[in-house]
């Protein structure tokens, strides 16, 4: 049973940070949720969708983050409570609307969750979305614990309603994707009724709206001054204070404890970080002579605090500020208690270590030389491995030094060994097709390389259609290959407009990718990448044509397919596999590189690893000796 649904106020349960945010929305009586999936945010809308029918709320997967925010804003303008959640890149996508809905204002509580990914663990970039709160003049909350993730989300709806603006919640991977204790609150009965009234037009007297926006933000600041999410722990007259927010709270507390500095160092933990609760901060820094600012990614808090200190020069004593600017903390990437402890130790002239140096050295010397590197790869059975093999083979046959522009999805791994290093560019959603449309117009400058843009099915709907239309309109030489595996696979297989079902799993109209392409007026073919020879041949033929063309490689993600089908047994016929005498250079294991095929060093033949193999059988079509057998296949 989904923990977000449990109606037992006071019960303590294990919740992922994202589930806690979803639960907070439920406890606020949220009516409407819209989102596009993106790590580390996807579980927020997923959790809400999973209980949507139960609570009578509405949840959708939108085509992209901009549309999601617009849809959620519609609910807000009709007096409902709405939440939208996205990863940091999604904030960029919806920023155009964000920078105008702030001016028009909102009505029902509108909570905007930006889940940042410090160190870009599952992203093409790391970015500190808090800058958007300052950019757009929006109130910003940063939960530090799982409990706060829930409680703060509930409060964010109230803040949004009181100031008439979207309220932003900034989470990070280590909160969103970690789990911890959450004490549940009450789930209210909601009387839901939507009605649109009034006028919400941004840009009518924009300077006046901007000025009104600043006044709203001042109201938020007043509210933040007394917030229960800002607190101070430590000695009353601490000269040294750590100022922190979000994930930095846990790390700061553990660093102080590890160094035994509880009696000397205070921690000022801020939950409301834009606009800053200035009086609250000044009150707690009156005795301070040194502060260390601990936060994840940009020195956002650090800079804003410095501005505040500069303004308060006459009321506060001089304070040394340590953080990213002084090099004590990185100002990029993720942090942890060790990085904070090392910063603290270096400022205070202490030593910090977490294990005996001699042991650490011995462990490294003993273990590291024998540990093979392990990189992520396509799952066994993944259609992308076959698709990228077909692309590689077709480009090689073509012989004109063609290359692939990449996009965002599981197939991004195609930049590495999993996809035979085929992707040569990789940026953001839709960029592969946009870039290709530009490369395809460079003929007048002597450019003669074929360009293949790969793009997933969900990415196609999200951001690639404008690039394709541009290529068609400007008659650019682009071959777009849509890797259609039936869903938004990388984030957990959420549906998209081509999937045939909605966020609640109900049947939905299908927007066919090939029909969209036909309507744009481009040549389009659909092939199964597991029919590898045919796929290579047809791709080669399409490479010889001019203009914008689309090849759809369609085969469902095997993670989903295998749940519905009985696994076929695949094995190597040891009579037919002649090992290194074959001349295939161990094609199945060494070249095609499926983790389900291993090399039996004793027999000197290929072997199927039955624990890993999913039974897709594509290797059987590729083995030159026909030695791989699919039972019943």
């Amino acid at each position: 049973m989904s923990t977000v649904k449990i109606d037992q106020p006071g019960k303590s349960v294990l919740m992922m940070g994202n589930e806690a945010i979803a639960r907070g929305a439920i406890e606020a009586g949220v009516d409407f949720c819209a989102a596009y999936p993106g790590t580390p945010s996807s579980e927020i809308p997923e959790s809400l969708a999973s209980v949507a029918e139960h609570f009578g709320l509405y949840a959708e997967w939108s085509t992209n983050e901009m549309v999601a925010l617009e849809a959620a804003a519609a609910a807000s303008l009709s007096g409902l409570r709405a939440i939208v959640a996205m990863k940091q890149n999604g904030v960029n996508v919806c920023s155009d609307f964000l920078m105008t809905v702030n001016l028009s204002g909102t009505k029902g509580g509108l909570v905007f969750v930006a889940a940042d990914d410090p160190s870009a663990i599952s992203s093409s970039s790391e970015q500190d979305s808090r800058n958007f709160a300052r950019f757009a003049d929006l109130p910003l909350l940063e939960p530090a614990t799982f409990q706060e993730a829930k409680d703060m989300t509930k409060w964010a709806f109230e803040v949004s309603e009181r100031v008439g603006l979207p309220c932003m919640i900034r989470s990070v991977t280590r909160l969103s994707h970690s789990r911890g204790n959450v004490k549940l609150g009450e789930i209210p009965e909601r009387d839901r009724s939507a009605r649109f009234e009034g006028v919400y037009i941004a840009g009518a007297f924009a300077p006046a709206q901007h000025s009104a926006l600043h006044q709203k933000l001042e109201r938020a600041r007043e509210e933040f001054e007394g917030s229960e999410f800002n607190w101070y722990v430590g000695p009353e007259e601490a000269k040294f204070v750590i100022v922190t927010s979000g994930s930095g709270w846990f790390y700061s507390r553990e660093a102080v404890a590890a160094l035994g500095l509880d009696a000397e160092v205070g921690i000022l933990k801020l939950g409301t970080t834009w606009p800053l609760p200035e009086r609250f901060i000044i009150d707690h820094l009156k005795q301070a002579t040194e502060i260390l600012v601990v936060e994840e990614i940009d020195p956002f808090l650090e800079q804003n605090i410095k501005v505040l200190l500069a303004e308060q020069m006459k009321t506060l004593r001089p304070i040394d500020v340590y953080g990213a600017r002084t090099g004590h903390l990185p100002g990029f990437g993720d942090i942890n208690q060790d990085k904070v402890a090392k910063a603290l130790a270096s400022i205070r002239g202490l030593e910090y270590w977490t294990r005996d140096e001699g042991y650490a050295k011995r462990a490294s010397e003993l273990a590291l030389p024998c540990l093979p590197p392990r990189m992520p790869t396509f799952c066994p059975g993944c259609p992308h491995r076959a698709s990228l093999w077909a692309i590689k083979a077709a480009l090689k046959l073509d012989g004109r030094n063609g290359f692939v522009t990449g996009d965002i999805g599981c197939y991004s791994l195609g930049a590495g060994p999993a996809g035979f290093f085929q992707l040569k560019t990789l940026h953001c959603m839709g960029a592969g097709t946009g870039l290709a449309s530009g490369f395809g117009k460079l003929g007048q400058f002597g450019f003669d390389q074929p360009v293949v843009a790969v793009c997933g099915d969900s990415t196609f709907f999200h951001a690639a259609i404008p690039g394709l239309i541009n290529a068609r309109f400007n008659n650019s030489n682009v071959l777009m290959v849509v890797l259609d595996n039936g869903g938004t696979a990388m984030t957990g297989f959420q549906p998209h407009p081509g999937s045939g079902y909605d966020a609640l799993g109900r049947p939905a109209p299908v927007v066919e990718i090939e029909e969209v392409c036909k309507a744009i007026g481009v040549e389009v073919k659909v092939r199964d990448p597991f029919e590898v020879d045919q796929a290579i041949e047809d791709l080669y033929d399409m490479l010889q044509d001019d203009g914008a063309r689309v090849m759809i490689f369609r085969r469902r993600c095997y993670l989903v397919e295998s749940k519905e089908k009985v696994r076929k047994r695949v094995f190597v016929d040891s009579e037919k596999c002649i090992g290194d005498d074959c001349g295939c250079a161990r094609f199945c294991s060494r070249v095609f590189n499926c983790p389900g095929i291993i090399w039996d060093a004793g027999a000197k033949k290929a072997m199927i690893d039955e624990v890993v193999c999913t039974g897709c059988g594509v290797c059987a079509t590729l083995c030159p000796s026909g030695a791989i057998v699919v039972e019943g296949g």
Partner: protein
Amino acid sequence: MALEKDPLNLIITGVGGQGNVLASQIVASAGIKEGLYVTVGETYGASQRGGPVMSHVRFSLQAQCSPLISEGQADIVVGLEPVEALRVVAEFGNPKTRVIVNPRPIYPIWVLSGQAKYPPVEEVLEKLEELVDRVEVVRVTEDGETPPAVNVLMMGALAASGLLPIPIESFEEAMREILAPKDVELNLQALRKGVAAIRKG
């Protein structure tokens, strides 16, 4: 209820696709049932399949912990795969660490493509023995079957090892809550297999 150390730090490690996340969710939910603060940090992302994965699980009677364990601070390591267990011990182990490991390798693609070597499993186990206090090897495939739910089986081994102050019943109860009803029985069987494997060993 007492903890030998507060916080008590457990790392579950394996290869993407082995079910690390579910394993950590089971043991953490079982801990919460015993009134503990439990924090789980997951390292997954692009490594959906085939990459190394780790779950940091921290138990405390006093407070919610950060989701990450410091270098050298793992008290218990559960390895769903041998090389990954050694990789984790190299960074997070100390002389007092206890290890429970499934010795069945999963080969990385660099090994398949011939660019790297996978060490003999016995060598990996010897190195583990040399570095930590105790190593329990859970041979999950001795009856020749394809092992179902290695992740849950290893949680059974952990539950029966006595290394955590959490009774097996709490693991079972947590599984009944977390898993879809149709999956409960098969997974309980896997859990019991793990329990038996440790008791036999």
